[in-house]
């Protein structure tokens, strides 16, 4: 398979003087096949990297929109097998975004191996701390998967160093203190966090939480290497009458955002 690597995507974006656009969509939402089609529409609209969400029963980092999508995915009995199936269908670099327990339950060795086999490039783990990452680091290294941790405006500098040292591929900077979900305005906390990160790491930095519009994408692209959008896409899927309409509207938003990351 001739998918780009994460590093290649960020390098290409940099050479084009823009940020990469990263789109989040849970596997199995609104259905297994539907999630594949929607992700394809995201990519057609200009998403450079896909985060495939692994729905979880107790998503403490997520706001109402992603919770609703997760509940639907779980009702559709979406488990590891389905998540891996969706990852294998994506034509751009794709990572899994998962709370820790489903991975631990599947088996850290087994999950990393299976993800690498279907062509996944990494995993974002919002509730795995570096202190609990011993086996995780070994197995992701063994399978050449990127380990993406999520840092927050409240993360102090000494901790940022420790987390960044264990991160690979890119680092996920939460734009604000809070859960996922669209926000009307973004505060300065994102740019401040990114500039603190720049001092301690050369990893690409992607900013997520709250980004939903062209303007927000453009303003984040001014200082970040990647712009992550999830809830805004999911909301469109929730509102759509069918998959076809959902694909149209997410592709259209992806086009706007992908224009936004070029205007930053």
């Amino acid at each position, binding site marked *: 398979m001739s998918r780009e690597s994460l590093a290649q995507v960020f390098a290409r974006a940099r050479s084009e003087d823009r940020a990469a656009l990263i789109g989040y969509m849970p596997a199995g939402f609104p259905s297994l096949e539907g999630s594949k089609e929607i992700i394809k529409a995201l990519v057609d609209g200009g998403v450079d990297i896909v985060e495939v969400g692994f729905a979880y029963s107790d998503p*403490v980092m997520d706001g109402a929109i992603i919770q609703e999508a997760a509940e639907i995915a779980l009702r559709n009995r979406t*488990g590891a097998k389905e998540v891996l199936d969706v990852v294998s269908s994506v034509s751009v670099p794709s990572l899994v975004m998962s709370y820790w327990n489903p991975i631990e339950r599947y088996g850290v060795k087994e999950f990393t191996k299976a993800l690498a086999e279907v062509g996944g490039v990494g995993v974002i783990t919002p509730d795995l701390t570096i*202190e609990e990452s011993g086996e995780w680091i070994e197995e992701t290294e063994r399978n050449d998967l990127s380990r993406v941790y999520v840092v927050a405006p409240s993360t102090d500098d000494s901790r940022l160093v420790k987390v960044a040292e264990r991160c690979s591929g890119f680092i996920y900077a939460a734009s604000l203190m809070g859960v996922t979900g669209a926000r009307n305005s973004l505060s300065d906390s994102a740019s401040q966090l990114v500039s603190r990160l720049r001092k301690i790491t050369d990893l690409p930095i992607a900013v997520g939480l709250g980004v939903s519009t062209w303007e927000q994408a453009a303003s984040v692209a001014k200082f970040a290497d990647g712009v992550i959008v999830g809830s805004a896409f999911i909301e469109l899927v929730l509102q759509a009458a069918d998959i076809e309409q959902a694909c149209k509207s997410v592709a259209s938003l992806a086009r706007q955002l992908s224009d936004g990351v070029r205007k930053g």
Partner: protein
Amino acid sequence: MERTEIVGHFGPYGGRFVPEALIGALDELEAANNSASKDPEFQKELNHLHKTYTGRPSIITEAKRFAEHAGNARILLKREDLNHTGSHKINNVLGQALLTKRMGKKRIIAETGAGQHGVASATAAALLGLECVVYMGEEDTKRQALNVARMKLLGATVVPVTTGSRTLKDAINEAMRDWVTNVASTHYLLGTVAGPHPFPTMVRDFHRIIGIEARQQVLEMTGRLPDAVLACVGGGSNAIGIFHPFLDDQKVRLIGLEAGGSGVESGKHAATIVGGTPGVLHGTRSYLLQDSDGQTIESHSISAGLDYPGVGPEHAYLHDIGRAEYRAITDDQAMHAFSLFSKCEGIIPAIETAHALAGALQVGNELGSGTILLINLSGRGDKDVQTAAQYFGIPL
């Protein structure tokens, strides 16, 4: 399982599985708790509150008529039901509320199932002048309506949680979301020995007073240590509080009673250790009720305070090393003990506590006369009158 840095673990259990956003607050809490535990002024203030407000030390009552149904073993009750607000929960709440002030925070949030922890939190907030928001599953706001009213009368805001199973687990999710958002101003006053480090250790230490007092009291009353100590286990705070000071007394059996709901084999239960498997929930590794994909399975119990699919990590460890035993008590067994105990002793226990009493009936009959059982009477049953009336068909 391998870990790079060991913090707050009990064997393979415990630790921290939380968003990075919360690490600063957990570190701050750990530091505040460590310094407070060594600060004589803090200890003095907490002890003074316990003496003049909680009503400590709580007394020991011998349950002689109930004992006749429990193989004539001596049944000694540690009366946490007589604490202000009606349960053991106040021990932890006063400690954490004082820590909140020490950290300079002005707002507390709490989750509650039965409402006992919510009431205790609202009480401490009123006493110490803190803002208090309590998250409670919508399902629980209905079965514990009286406690919702109590919290409101005490000046707290009660937020009914309508996500997931609408019970305690979802109330914790919602409280965590609030905390991630408002962590600079807010302390999350977790109500049991679960959650990320330092909660399991800190909450245990605030409840150890139960076991410290009881050990001394039993020695004075009987001249020896009990043969077994029994307590109900939801998250596990009242149990670890009475167990912990007996850990080194190898001859004293420690027995935790979990909520067996309609029976563990039915799948409708909350017996996390008896019927669960190791995994990660709400920031800690412990036993939990989960399916083969690692999704949490909803728990079932007639007792709102035990209706939780997780359990404190130290209990998981005590179970694995064989220092404590855990059994499941069904709804029906608990309600039988509830009724029997009320009629024999003139004390209406909380339905949570009735699980420990049902355990006492079993263990007393196994060990027989001449043995001594110490039971943590964790709470009183006023809040459960409606549920019990319904169960027994008493018209209201």
